[in-house]
């Protein structure tokens, strides 16, 4: 089945390539053979460039594990003020509820995804998003969750949930998402 998929991909890519009318293309490696399952293809040309295609299987936002509950546990996102990594007082009960859940389910791990709004430079926002995720992690730890069960990743401003360019969109994007890892 997998071979068939990669064959289809190769056909799709070749079709795409032909539509651009480029000459002298060379398939340097077949997709299924590379370790990460990536497609690498050389294009003959004055300055050659080749496409690296990231395989997507197993990635993407799926439903996570974790509590199927109403109330505080149903809230998986906490929000932040502009250029701030300080958890708001009103969000403390939400984080404490998740800490209690994690304390009661010791085999479940959690990922904290830090995000920012679109303002300011991108790499600085990666750092700011990490600071937000770390602030939530510290609160989970203070409430008894072992640090080894918490994973932190910052996407900065790269994955906004609200696409507008005003304060209401920015507020929705300055957030930490609590994602229970699939077991």
């Amino acid at each position, binding site marked *: 089945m997998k071979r068939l998929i990669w064959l289809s991909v190769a056909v799709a890519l070749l079709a795409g390539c032909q539509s*651009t009318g480029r000459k002298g293309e060379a398939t340097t490696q077949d997709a299924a053979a590379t370790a990460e399952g990536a497609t690498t293809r050389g294009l003959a040309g004055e300055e050659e460039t080749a496409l690296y*295609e990231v395989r997507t299987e197993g990635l993407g936002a799926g439903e996570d594990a974790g509590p199927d509950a109403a109330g505080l546990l149903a809230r998986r996102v906490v929000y932040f003020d502009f250029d701030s990594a300080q958890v708001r007082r009103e969000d403390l009960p939400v984080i404490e509820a998740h800490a209690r859940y994690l304390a009661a389910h010791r085999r479940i791990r959690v990922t904290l995804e830090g995000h920012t709004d679109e303002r300011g430079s991108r790499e*600085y926002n*990666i*750092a700011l998003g*990490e*600071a937000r995720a770390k602030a939530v992690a510290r609160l989970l730890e203070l409430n008894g969750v072992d640090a080894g069960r918490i994973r932190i990743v910052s996407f900065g401003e790269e994955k906004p949930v609200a696409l507008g360019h005003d304060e209401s969109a920015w507020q929705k994007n300055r957030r930490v998402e609590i994602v229970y890892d699939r077991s």
Partner: protein
Amino acid sequence: MPVPYRSLWILLLFGLAWSARGELTIEITQGVEGAIPIAVVPFAGQAGLPEDVAAIVRADLGRSGRFQPLPPRDMLTRPTSPDDVNWGAWQTLGQDYLVVGSVTSLGGDRYEVQFHLLDVYRKERLAGYRLPAEGRTLRRTAHRIADIVYEKITGQPGAFATRIAYVTVTRQDGRRIYQLQIADADGHRPRTVVVSPEPLMSPAWSPDGQKIAYVSFEHRRSAVYIQTLATGAREKVAEFPGINGAPAWSPDGGELALTLSKDGSPDIYVLNLTTRRLRRLTHSFAIDTEPSWSPDGKRLVFTSDRGGSPQIYIVPAQGGRPRRLTFTGAYNARAVFSPDGRKLALVHGGRGYRIAVFDLASGRMEVLTTGPLDESPSFAPNGSMILYATQVDGRGQLAAVSVDGRVRQRLRTGDGDVREPAWSPF
């Protein structure tokens, strides 16, 4: 079998997305008053060729904002060699300079392009060259001609035969598709070099122009890769716990400065690409990120909020005490050195985020753009223009401004967001 079917669908989607390539078009939104009038006459032997050489030269010079090329329809005569030139006729048309030339077929796909740059008032030849070409390199040959003309007249090397890298984000059925693309400096021939369903960031050219370092979140965490453009082969050079970001090549290509948070808060590290040894350059509890090397490789600037707000600091490449450079405004970030090492281009926050130039000798800050969300400045290798990301009608687009603020260009693309431009070296 839900999983295989899903991945099949996604991958086919990428195949299609990759083929649907839209060229960037560049328009001048503000040119220099008193731009130099120049006539680039259609070349002899042009019929049937894949590219219109004179038209490419004309477009390059016009786009720089420093020249005002004469439209071919206004040319009363069309000489193709210096001997055919009626000087008076071009003087009457108010032209200062004239470019004439020809393309000669050498059989097969091989050509020789010959051109002459003429001073209309002195009635003399300033330059004359013969350049070999193939059908597929004609565009580049035309850009080289524009480079030579630009340098002969302005005294500054042209940067037309260079490339730009940038990240595009398109949406298909609610999913984002991130692509790292490379195009010629005039926006033509866009080519996708990486495509991913997760964010791609911070492309950085190696000094020899053959490789690009970038950040990829393909495993839902950040990692820094170096990819060889010709082959698509790539190598993961940093995937530590926490942030792996902001790659910046040392001018000799031997080292890569990075932002890592593996030891706590984000700090600047330098990775030796030969020995793979990592040395730590900053040691603050604050955010340190966005390193950029001085052209002589002796110093780096970076963004830090150690003083309470993001500001630009400078530190010796071999380590030492960082010194704060910027004191104007509450937000200064993502600085890059100009090719001559005298200035920084940076993101200056205040009322919106704008591109500013900071003079290292005087400490003066000059804001060049109007915002509201301008970011990611990148110098042309000749130092003439700054390419940056901006927002137009809520969409990420690229724009460029001359270092003196007199020339402005906007680069338009088909669809999606375009961001994080990086201008290649020569």
